[in-house]
């Protein structure tokens, strides 16, 4: 989620621009904390089903790594497509 979201800030006074950018930064920090929490929740739910032992098994660890990596790559690709749609030059099939 980048600054371009809000279009042209130049019409604002110096002080308002600072206030706006801080607001965006605050929102981005909160959003990335939430993303972190839901990524853990999703990969734990998908990868960990057995509670015979108290420590993560080899297979579970691999599954969590792949789940997290796939989600991050997925999320980046969605971001690209989303900004294309936002700026109106959607890819034609």
């Amino acid at each position: 989620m980048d600054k371009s979201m809000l279009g042209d800030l130049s019409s604002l006074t110096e002080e308002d621009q600072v206030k706006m950018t801080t607001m965006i930064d605050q929102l981005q920090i909160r959003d990335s904390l939430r993303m972190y929490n839901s990524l853990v929740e999703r990969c734990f739910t998908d990868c960990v089903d057995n509670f015979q032992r108290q420590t993560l098994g080899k297979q579970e660890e691999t599954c969590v790594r792949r789940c997290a990596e796939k989600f991050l790559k997925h999320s980046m690709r969605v971001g690209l497509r989303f900004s294309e749609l936002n700026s109106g030059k959607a890819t034609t099939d």
Partner: protein
Amino acid sequence: MDKEQIFGMAEKEMEYRVELFNKLTQTCFNKCIDKKYKENELNMGENTCIDRCVAKYWQVTNLVGQLLGSQRPM
């Protein structure tokens, strides 16, 4: 509108977009990605599915927006 309201509106607009992006991301992950996580790369089929899923989600967002008509908040 005074400055207070402008900032208020800007904040809600951003919260709306962040939530839209997160729901789009979660929904298309559920629709397109195989939960067995056999490898850590996205394969060709998954990539195509993601592109089409984002496009269709966008169309549904606009369609529901029209249905909400004047009620549409944004």
